[in-house]
């Protein structure tokens, strides 16, 4: 969008929305660790993407929005569509949470549930096909495309502003990576003020975002079966992969020790940030807690459900296992020195473990 157009765009504060719900509350957890606890982090990028689309005509007043999501981004879009008078079509699959499903329907969303996965490409490809069909059936409709829309990372300037104003100089930023919007956005903004900022991305085993082979994942919200264009790999100094059981246990610890009732990705971020803050006591760390715990009452906050998880030990590791290459799949917490490389650079570097194996044979 041209600068002139941006400067004359309609004011988001004159449209309805939830400005006071968009930004996190900052909580000091230890001397050098600060948590940024969101109500629903996706409200911020969703609102920014809709504002921008409304400003340049991609989204008409009373128009239709189509998106594929079964998570918090869908909920954020549904809240905004409800108060701003847009029609919203969300494509999802049978794994969608029952309570979220009801809540979306109550907000007036048209939910299209893809019943069967494709033989090749699974639910992800089936959902993308259904989304394409919905866009074609609704000419002039707008697809926010959170994985590729550059307004997603750019929305997070407001979080960077809040961090810079409240915490001043920050040494380390830790957060989970799903679409990549929050971490890539905040990291780049804060690094403009501090080129030495240490950035740690938190992913989960069997997610391809940082080079692991695709597979089934129990921990939702972070990780992906595709590499979203909004992940700016060169922003990251370190990548950690946190397994579901550890993330859930850390989520409970965040509540037990710090009284913050947050979701599973918050637990994953807390596990890594707390470790880094403990091992770097003279450095200031800030970490992102993307949503609250209420959606996880029957799961993460239910002891019986946790105990039935495969591989459940009830014990939290003290530190990650460093790996020589992202393709060294481990089911539990591991870390890799990413060193601000691109994904191609990392993948092109031979996996030292595989090389050793080949040499031994």
């Amino acid at each position: 969008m041209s600068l002139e157009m941006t400067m004359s765009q309609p004011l988001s504060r004159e449209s309805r929305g939830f400005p006071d719900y968009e930004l996190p509350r900052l909580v000091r957890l230890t001397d050098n660790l600060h948590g940024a606890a969101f109500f629903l982090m996706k409200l911020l990028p969703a609102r920014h993407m809709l504002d921008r689309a409304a400003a340049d005509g991609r989204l008409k007043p009373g128009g239709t929005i189509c998106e594929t999501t079964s998570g918090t981004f869908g909920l954020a879009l549904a809240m905004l569509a409800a108060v701003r008078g847009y029609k919203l079509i969300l494509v999802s699959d049978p794994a969608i949470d029952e309570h979220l499903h009801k809540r979306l329907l109550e907000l007036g969303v048209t939910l299209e549930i893809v019943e069967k996965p494709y033989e090749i490409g699974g639910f992800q490809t089936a959902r993308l096909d259904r989304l394409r069909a919905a866009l074609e059936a609704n000419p002039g409709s707008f697809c926010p495309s959170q994985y590729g829309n550059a307004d997603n990372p750019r929305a997070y300037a407001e979080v960077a502003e809040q961090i810079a104003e409240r915490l001043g100089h920050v040494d380390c930023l830790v957060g989970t990576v799903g679409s990549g919007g929050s971490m890539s956005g905040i990291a780049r903004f804060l690094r403009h003020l501090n080129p030495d900022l240490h950035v740690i991305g938190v992913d989960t085993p069997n997610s391809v975002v940082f080079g692991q082979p695709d597979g089934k994942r129990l921990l939702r919200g972070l990780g992906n079966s595709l590499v979203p264009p909004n992940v700016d790999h060169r922003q990251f100094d370190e990548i950690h992969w946190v397994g579901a059981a550890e993330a859930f246990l850390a989520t409970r610890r965040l509540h037990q020790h710090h009284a913050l009732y947050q979701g599973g990705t918050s637990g994953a971020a807390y596990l890594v940030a707390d470790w880094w803050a403990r091992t770097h006591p003279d450095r200031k760390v800030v970490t992102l807690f993307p949503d609250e715990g209420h959606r996880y009452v029957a799961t993460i906050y239910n002891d019986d459900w946790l105990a039935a998880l495969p591989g459940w030990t009830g014990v939290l590791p003290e530190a990650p296992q460093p790996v020589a290459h992202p393709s060294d799949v481990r089911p539990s917490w591991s870390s890799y020195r990413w060193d601000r490389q691109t994904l191609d650079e990392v993948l092109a570097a031979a996996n030292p473990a595989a090389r050793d194996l080949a040499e031994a044979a």
Partner: protein
Amino acid sequence: MPGDVISRFASVRLGTRGNQRKEHGFGQVNGHHGEILQGIFPDDAGRLHRGLVTLPCNIVSSTAVFRPAPGNLVTVPDDKLKAAEAARLTLDSLGLHDQGGHLTVESTIPVGLGMGSSTADVVAAIRAVAHAHGAALAADEVARLAVRAETASDSIMHGDLAILFAQREGIVLEHLGPALPPLEVLSVNTAPGTGVDTVKQPPADYDDWEVQAFRPLRGMLRRAIRTGDAALLGRVATASARISQRHLPKPAFEEINAIAASAGALGIQVAHSGTVVGLLFDPRNPATARRVAEATSRLDTIGLPPALHFRTDAVEVRHVA
């Protein structure tokens, strides 16, 4: 009409105070050394404005003397066209449409470096005309007249106040504090002998990322001012200078930045519509004298000896009007 409002207020003041027209009016204002921050910023309603935060430089200034007389307005030197225009606008705003006089403007501010020479002449002229008629104009009124005279103005009419100022509208977007944390500045002119027509330049065409990136800069600036943290101020200035480098590149920018970093400066700062670059130091730090000396000798070796060295808190603010 704002002009009519101003003239009504001004004439009320003239009347109630009983201030008679004087033989002479004086006006003076200090220059600046470019900006700590310049970009695009939302106001309270979310509307975007071009805005800036000026770095004061109180060792240079413009002075004007105005002698009222009926008829024409004569300005010396006669190439100070914007100062002449500002004097005319001020007379009109005071309701003195038939009044003229003799305006003399003198300045120690170098021209074309982005140090506010043009705005300083304009503000000194406005203050001199107002003073000659016993009218005390508020800084906001001076700012509005200045913008009308020269399209875009620096915020020097507000003195050392730390404000985010919309330079094309003459309004304050945010009051940041009574002053910036004190700084010691080593000034380099990166393009000696050329200069920039600071007013004729097209305004910077920031991209979508840059428009957003000004938000965290503003956030850190608020904290720097609230807590008196000169180091944070240096970070904000350096980040703003980096964005400016895409729009009005300074020769030898990277070399100067490297010298600043290796000499232990807080950062660098630029005139976003000029040629000067400032290396910023903390005057409260005992190592500063040594660091300034070190930076000076390195700047000498790349052929850019510092032209000025000043402290933002050292010279008393002179205020006439």
